[in-house]
């Protein structure tokens, strides 16, 4: 009886997992099919012949936006994690008046929907002359993601023994040297978690990318992929190729840095 029950549960778990992976599987296989093959309705079948026409076409459209997205995501992630960990260190390891209050204020803005900042943010970017520029988007993502990075890194810094800082300070090493020479090297895991989470967030982000650039030379990949649905109506193979291309960085990140991604998610929800 118990064995039967376990078997049923296992079957359900496995079937559910298959159902969960199917959309991604269909996205990749469909992207290699011709429209004629797609319309036969055999969605789960492997492409009879791999043809790269859709990929070529989608890649041509996405070449520049992908480059923009890489520049924006990588720069913004780097700056975000640097600033976040810089202040996160002070938040985790220095005692000062209003520290809990500051933590509370950071936690609030970390989780607020972007819509609340959208009007003033657009105004800020326009008035700085950064509308339609990659720097404008980098600046916006840094502003919006730093609170999260501060929280996550400060949590990781708290797990580092206090004696380490004490010993370093007694040896005459100041906080700045301590941050660069000791804290950063031993906190790679925590910094990577913040970085991986920020990178995926920024890469996949839509509303800011949509609002801050209307210029084809500075558009990011996600809004361009979103636009394909309007210009390639019902050409699902083409749409899947575009969707697959922009999904690759996230999937690779999960494949190689999955551990950090999970750690970051858990720390982001403050559970360590």
């Amino acid at each position, binding site marked *: 009886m118990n064995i039967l029950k376990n078997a049923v549960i296992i079957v359900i778990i496995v079937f559910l997992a298959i159902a969960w992976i199917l959309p991604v599987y269909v996205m990749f296989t469909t992207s290699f099919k011709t429209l004629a093959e797609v319309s036969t309705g055999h969605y789960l079948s492997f492409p009879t012949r791999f043809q790269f026409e859709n990929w070529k076409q989608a890649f041509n459209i996405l070449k520049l936006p992908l480059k923009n997205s890489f520049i924006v995501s990588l720069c913004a992630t780097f700056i975000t994690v640097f600033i976040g960990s*810089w202040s996160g260190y002070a938040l985790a390891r220095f005692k000062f008046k209003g520290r809990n209050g500051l933590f509370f204020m*950071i936690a609030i803005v970390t989780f607020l*929907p972007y819509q609340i900042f*959208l009007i003033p943010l657009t105004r800020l970017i326009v008035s700085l002359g950064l509308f339609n520029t990659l720097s404008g988007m980098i600046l916006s993502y840094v502003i919006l993601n730093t609170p999260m990075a501060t929280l996550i890194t400060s949590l990781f810094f708290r797990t580092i023994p206090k004696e380490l800082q004490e010993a370093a300070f007694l040896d005459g090493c100041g906080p700045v040297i301590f941050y660069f020479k000791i804290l950063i090297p031993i906190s790679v895991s925590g910094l990577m978690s913040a970085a991986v989470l920020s990178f995926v967030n920024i890469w996949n982000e839509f509303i800011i990318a949509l609002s801050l650039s209307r210029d084809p030379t500075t558009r990011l990949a996600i*809004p361009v992929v979103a636009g394909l649905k309007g210009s390639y109506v019902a050409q699902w193979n083409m749409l899947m190729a575009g969707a697959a291309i922009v999904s690759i960085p996230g999937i690779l990140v999960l494949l190689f840095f999955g551990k950090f991604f999970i750690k970051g998610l858990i720390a982001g929800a403050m559970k360590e």
Partner: protein
Amino acid sequence: MLRLGEKGGRFIRVSRRTIFFFLLPAFVIIGVLYYMLLWTVVVSMTDWVGMNPTWKFAGFKNYKLLFSMPRFWVNMKNNIIWLVVFVVPTGVFGMILAYLLELFPSISRIVRPIYLYPLVVAPIVAGTLWAWFFDPQSGVLNSILDLVNLSNFKAGWIADPKLAVYCMIVAGIWQNLGFALVLYTAAIREIPREHIEAAKVDGANMRQIFFHIVVPEIGHATLIIFSLLVLYTLKVFDLVWIMTRGGPGYATEVLPYLMYRITFRQLLVGMGAAVAVVILMLSIVILIPLSKWMMARWIEE
């Protein structure tokens, strides 16, 4: 003037200037964010229309107008549907799945990562996938129904004003189940093993252990996960944009989408800010207790 650094037995002197030096970037960015927040509230009480900020103070006119629009209440209704049909299944399902996967570690090593992939896929991509699935003309679901001779069940799906919201919610659940799963798995692993072993010795079965030990002991995780899922419903934008653009009509609009639509398409900026403030108020109701609770845990450590 010197302040004391956090100590491990001995006092360490860190000057106030040093602390300020480290906190400065955070102060600037947090300052900018709170300033923006205030700005949105101010703009919501102006008659700003069009691209350029030319406004006069208008009091609560935007809010009055907003609350008198049937469209706003359709949005509210859809947000409530999301709250019930998205948050509850994602949370409950994630909890049960996390527990079951912990029971079968050998299988879950293979299966668990599968649930994580939707998390790194852009919502725009997820929306494109599910828009195809639910497309009334060339969609996957309708053609499968044809194939298995269930044509009677064919429907307009995302083109049907009654069904479209639920189609979107399917995409939302698909994408976010992994999130609930990860957090619940972490929470379940924090339960002291003795509690579960003791229950097993007493002859409790899987279901009893789940309801009498696991569920009560992961209360804190449930609080956080459900709060974050509720917050998700207050920012869901990409799925609506890519799947239906809020249509048919405004049948599938939710507040975060309405805010964008009114501000950047209709250029009623003051009005858009009013919607943003409504979102802010609803978020704050969740966020203040959540942040307070996080802060308490943070101080403890």
